[in-house]
């Protein structure tokens, strides 16, 4: 589905991404881990088109999308959630979801019918809200919702456009243990047609949802494999899991 080949990106003297390659087949559950500043979010920005790589290519379904802007990549089926909540703050959760659904269905060119009367749009927003366990929060302005609920919605907006590849940037960041469990369950329930790439700091979450793990360090790949393989790699244990070599 999604493939990155030899991505490089520098900011001045800082090499944020060094020769990173990655392949996500259909239905992949892949995690990117690494210490702060290891280039995880830069990698996401390269994949979604917020940044252009200095070198390398991004392919979606075999098609070169390296030169496409984020909105064109989203239309091709690739979208993301953000590390910091990135929502339509003054609108209600229901309106947030309905807008995302309308964008996914390319309904924005309709200029004469009322938004609320678009066939089935609000019902689908409500159904999606329930799936996200947001049923009680749908009618409040998003700005007034608790952080954890906003976080659910953050992932929900990305899901609304029915992506083929979903990139989740620290979906559980700042969440309580209970909220983290709910989010983990939500990610685990995602349809298998969607390939998921997730940046995550919580190793329990990683081991629960990921089938493959890539470890980044100083912008380059330190290790890649199944969670068990990565966990047993000595370099990773030393560098990231904070264990000292015996």
């Amino acid at each position, binding site marked *: 589905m999604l493939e990155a080949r030899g991505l490089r990106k520098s900011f001045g003297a800082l090499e944020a991404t060094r020769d990173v390659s990655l392949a996500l087949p259909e239905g992949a559950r892949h995690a990117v881990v690494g210490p702060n500043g290891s280039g995880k979010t830069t990698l996401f920005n390269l994949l*979604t088109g*917020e940044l252009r790589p200095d070198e390398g290519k991004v392919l979606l379904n075999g098609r070169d999308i390296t030169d496409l*802007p*984020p*909105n*064109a990549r*989203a*239309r091709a089926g690739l*979208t*993301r959630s*953000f590390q910091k909540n*990135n*929502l*339509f*703050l*003054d*609108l*209600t959760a229901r*309106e947030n979801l*309905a*807008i*995302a659904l*309308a*964008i*996914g269905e390319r*309904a*924005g*060119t*309709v*200029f*004469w*019918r*009322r*938004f*609320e009367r*678009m066939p089935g749009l609000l019902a689908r927003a409500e159904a999606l809200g329930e799936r996200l366990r947001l049923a009680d929060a749908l*009618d*409040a*302005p998003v700005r*007034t919702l608790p952080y954890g609920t906003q976080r659910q919605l953050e992932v929900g*907006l*990305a899901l*609304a*456009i029915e992506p083929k590849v979903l990139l989740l940037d620290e979906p559980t960041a700042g969440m309580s243990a209970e909220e983290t469990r709910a989010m983990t369950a939500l990610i685990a329930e995602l349809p298998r047609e969607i390939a998921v790439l997730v940046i995550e700091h919580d190793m329990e979450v990683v081991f629960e949802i990921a089938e493959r793990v890539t470890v980044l360090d100083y912008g380059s790949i330190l290790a890649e494999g199944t969670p068990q393989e990565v966990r047993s790699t000595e370099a990773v244990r030393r560098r990231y899991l904070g264990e000292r070599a015996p």
Partner: protein
Amino acid sequence: MIGGEEFRRHCIAAAMLAAALLALALSGYAGRDRLAEIAILAIFAMSLDVLVGFTGLVSLGHALFFGLGAYALAAFTTMLKLAPSLAIPLAVFAAGLAAFLVGILAIRVKGVFFIMITLAFGQMGWAYFQRSRGFGGIGGISGVGQLDLDAIGLSLANPADMALIAIVSAALVYLALARVTASPFGRMLVAIHQNESRARALGLPVQRYKLAAFTLAGAAAGFAGVLAAERTSFVSPDLLVWTVSGEVLIMVIVGGLGTLVGPALGAAIWVLLRDNLSGLTPYWMLAMGLFFVAAVLFADEGLYGLASRIPWTRRRRPGNA
């Protein structure tokens, strides 16, 4: 949140329409001319609200399209001798086309740079019409062809009829813009205003929507300019001075961003204050400035926020009901 407000807005709009028609019946010659001016400025302000209030694009050059609509009508009727019934839609189209072309460049930048680039385009238009001999220079063009309304027993040379046509036009423009801004297209503009980068990440071609909003706002401003030229049969570079862009922006902000009726109310207050204060004191601009500072500071959502505190317009208040 937005849906519940809509009923209240229609109530305020209906009250304003009733007040305008009542004033038309009661007022004399000068009053009728004022009413026409208010209705025209209301259309102009509502057109800018689409851009500033809904899409979040603050333009300081909107008078360009107001002036272009007026000049296009003047040129079509006096130089090309077109019938006003044909020249009016063509002039609106010309203003929309100009907005489309300016928009292609202007929407590439954001925030303060967008303000500056729209101001620059506005000044270019003003400077051009001031110097251009073909368009009469600072003297402008007089004798703009007026639409023949004999068939319905009206004449635009008569201020009462002109005011009636302008008021009805403002009501129709309000209904059309209220409809468009409540549509999925309008909701995409609000989404861009709220969070442009997220809208883009979800797949919205943000630039195309901004350009569409800019074009729509320009065409509607052009229509206001057409009515302004019909009202006085005269156009001059004064229509495009940057202060006109600034004044209409104040009407929108003071009236209440993204509410359509608020900016229309702002236009009415602007004209009434100007006419009443300027007779009292040469420092009337100072008094007007103080009034607007107070309106922005103490009235949540501008004049619209004040008007919506009138109990009968309140059906439900989402959020704190």
